[in-house]
């Protein structure tokens, strides 16, 4: 399947010191199942790269390869210039990983003791480990719960503990796997803020997610994978350019006309700006407006108003980015 890309990343000649995370044509199988097939990406220092894809796309597999927990069958992976397969110690001194699951802590001991343990495995003395652990617990808002057993933490608290663990050594590389999927919106915002802050201080961040709303205004670049294949690489606005013509839900009235009877009048008012049809699951006054490419919503609304149509509500039916995601991950491949 062809890759839709605006800047195909990581040819070996292009690799340089600024590209902190580099994967080049990485493939991996599990038995007969192909988990990754020729995936390439790169993330520079201070950049947040989004690794986007639906469930089972291969995001976690790629993250595990990047941090050396899994070997690729083909391709190469370098993080801060280190090959994960040959320099695991050097690599792990520089990587903070936030895994997707909750099963990564000792549930019978406290959150603080968990962090102290992992800090000591990173080489800190006990005194330094306790001090640093308390600092990061403060940062993620878990001070006050540090003596509680990790097993009594909610999902959100465990996720924040995971973030705290990744922050223990101020990592130069952060690999984040579905960090916010079980957090409430405020918790998710806090985690994104922490990660943005880390990136501002120079860390390279790879943020794997299936949630589109997370990446707009947050990620600097996006690599979209589906069924183990790259479908897109580029910026968020470039991803959005692959969206279908925009669709909006309108609530309108025109005198006594409503429903099907109103539809021809609305279409006539719009002319070739777009198409309009009654919303399948709405009321008699609800319509779906689909704009043609390169047309503005304002023009459509003005045309309707000129035809004496009262517009009571207008909202985007589906985000452009979501449209792009669905189009690019569809098994039939990207648009021609």
């Amino acid at each position, binding site marked *: 399947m062809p890759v839709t890309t605006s800047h195909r990343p990581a040819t070996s000649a292009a690799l340089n010191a600024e590209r902190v995370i580099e994967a080049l044509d990485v493939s*991996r199988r599990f038995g007969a199942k192909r988990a990754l097939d020729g995936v390439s990406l790169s993330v520079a220092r201070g950049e947040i790269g989004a690794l986007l894809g639906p469930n089972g796309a291969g995001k976690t597999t790629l993250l595990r390869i990047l941090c050396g927990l899994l070997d690729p069958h083909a391709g190469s992976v370098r993080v801060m210039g280190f090959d994960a397969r040959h320099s695991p110690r050097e690599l792990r001194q520089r990587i903070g990983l936030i895994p997707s699951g*909750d099963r990564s802590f000792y549930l019978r001991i406290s959150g603080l003791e968990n962090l102290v343990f992992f800090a000591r495995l990173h080489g800190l003395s006990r005194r330094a480990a306790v001090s640093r652990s308390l600092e990061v617990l403060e940062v993620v808002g878990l001070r006050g719960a540090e003596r509680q057993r990790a097993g009594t933490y909610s999902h959100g608290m465990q996720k924040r503990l995971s973030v705290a663990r990744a922050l223990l050594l101020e990592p*130069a590389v952060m690999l984040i796997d579905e960090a916010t999927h079980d957090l409430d919106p405020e918790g998710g915002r806090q985690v994104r803020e922490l990660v943005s802050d880390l990136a501002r201080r120079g860390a390279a961040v790879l943020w794997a997610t299936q949630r589109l709303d997370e990446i707009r205004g947050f990620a600097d670049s996006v690599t979209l994978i589906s069924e183990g294949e790259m479908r897109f690489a580029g910026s968020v606005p470039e991803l959005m350019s692959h969206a279908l013509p925009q669709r909006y839900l309108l609530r309108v009235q025109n005198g006594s006309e409503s429903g099907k009877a109103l539809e021809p009048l609305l279409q006539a008012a719009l002319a070739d700006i777009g198409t309009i049809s009654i919303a399948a699951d709405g009321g008699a006054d609800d319509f779906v407006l689909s704009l043609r490419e390169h047309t503005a919503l304002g023009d459509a609304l003005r045309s309707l108003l000129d035809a004496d149509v009262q517009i009571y509500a207008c909202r985007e039916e589906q985000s452009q980015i979501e449209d792009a995601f669905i189009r690019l991950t569809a098994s039939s491949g990207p648009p021609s």
Partner: protein
Amino acid sequence: MSSVQTTAPHSSLFFGELRKLPAFARRDLLVAWSYRGAFFGEWIGLLTGAFTFYFVGLMVDPKTLPSFGGNHASYMEFVAAGIALGAFVQLGLGRVGAALRGEQLMGTLESLLMTPTSISTIQVGSAAYDLIYVPIRTALFFVILALTFGLTFEPSGIGPAVLSLLLFIPFVWGLGVMSAAITLTFRQGSGAFALGVSGLIIGSGAFFPLQLLPHWISSIARFNPVTLAVNGVRAPLLGGGWGGIWPDALLLAPVSVATLALGLYAFRLALRREQRRGTLGLY
């Protein structure tokens, strides 16, 4: 961003890894203490077993037992070393074998592997608490038995008995790591492994003299590492002095070292295989 030293001399690396071991021991102490019921229940089970052997011992004529340093010990004195060493093997093996499997089941194994910690340190660290606790528990068990049942042990035999116990630790540890490697690879099989170990304990003279076994079995059992350890603890405690332990100790030491080396190697292979296959997180 933090600046991290990229290379370190081997000695510095070695001591750096060594300094991580107390963190493992503390973690496991805290986890063990969080299961207080199991912690004390284990002791109650051990003492219940000791009482059972005490009453069985009342039916046994000491003259039918081997003599040590010219003295005929009571059955309870005879079997004390067997109970202690049997529990030592079962507990040590069970815990070492289960430690890394437990990490896999809990999902913490990958978290451990994500730290700049060597596989060897993780292996030793996962057993650190048990390597300290189980020998202390064994020594305490002897003291409690002596006080509760009025058993007499030779003070001059304590040193040789401790030496035998120390020589035995790598054997138990090696078997434990081997068991962990089998479980990591096949996700099962620890039961069959434990069955084999039970055979080793029964065929060690821990609970009855080897002479009671058919001749061909007893002549093989003579070289059973558990037999060597039981003899190395029992003979000096009941007969006193260092003299009797050397032949067994000289046999036990290389077997122990080889078992540990084999176990660690097998585990390293098993772990590498899991990483290669990508099945480390599967359980």
